[in-house]
């Protein structure tokens, strides 16, 4: 099993860093291009959600991202220490239309205000679960763990896989 682990301070710019690292690890593991796009978006949503919650509630604590390449496939886990998510959002468009996206809440400043205006944690989670077939969301007293899994092609299915397998 190969593992990459990241600890992110809750800054918006680090969400992109996490996307770049996870995509690089997924490509290296041999994930199909189409699934790499799915992973990029799902990971981006999960990280933006976690970073937003941390910035607001536990700004000194890092968000943890773990990518594991196992025999069963690729597993990507985002662990936060924020408060539990709200009720599941059935209609994502309604959630987005209700959130103003305009930063009208004035009781936050700087990064907090920006994140509060932009990241609706429930909408982000709904996008993740809508996007990824194999996803678990565990809410615990200490935070939330989002685990996403994708199948990896076997060595024989990869382009040039036979050569890799025999070399």
């Amino acid at each position: 099993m190969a593992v990459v682990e990241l600890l992110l301070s809750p800054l918006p710019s680090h969400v992109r860093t996490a996307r770049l690292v996870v995509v690089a690890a997924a490509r290296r593991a041999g994930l199909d291009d189409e699934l790499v796009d799915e992973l990029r978006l799902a990971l981006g949503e999960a990280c933006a959600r976690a970073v937003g919650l941390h910035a607001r509630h536990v700004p000194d604590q890092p968000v943890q991202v773990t990518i594991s390449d196992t025999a069963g496939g690729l597993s990507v886990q985002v662990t936060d220490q924020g408060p539990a998510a709200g009720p599941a959002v059935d209609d994502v468009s309604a959630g987005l239309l209700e959130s103003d996206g305009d930063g009208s809440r004035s009781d936050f400043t700087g990064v907090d205000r920006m994140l509060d205006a932009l990241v609706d944690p429930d909408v982000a989670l709904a996008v993740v679960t809508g996007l990824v077939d194999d996803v678990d969301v565990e809410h615990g007293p200490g935070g939330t763990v989002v685990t996403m899994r994708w199948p990896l092609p076997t060595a024989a299915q990869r382009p040039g896989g036979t050569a890799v397998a025999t070399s």
Partner: protein
Amino acid sequence: MDLSLSTRTESGPGGDRTVVVVGGEIDVYTAPKLREQLIDLVSSGQYHLVVDMEGVEFLDSTGLGVLVGGLKRVRAHEGSLRLVCTQERILKIFRITGLTKVFPIHSSVEEAVAATD
């Protein structure tokens, strides 16, 4: 890649349209820049916007939130916000979130500028 933004005016049958050409990544880090651009345009009286997303490489729900915010602002002035997008990976997030019902999505800037409905 960072976010790139430029605007130009095109004339259509319904009047002038402000075309906002967006490139790069729209995410939690760059979305505020797009939001400011849309707010500036509406504040300066430009209520009919066409957002060209053909150069967008990544869009997440924070970017969608900004577009929804822009749509609400132009609607408050009887305006419109049309999107130009043919990229499947970008269209996918509009479908997942149900926003294809909210935004008119066109396959070219010409088509969006010509639209009057």
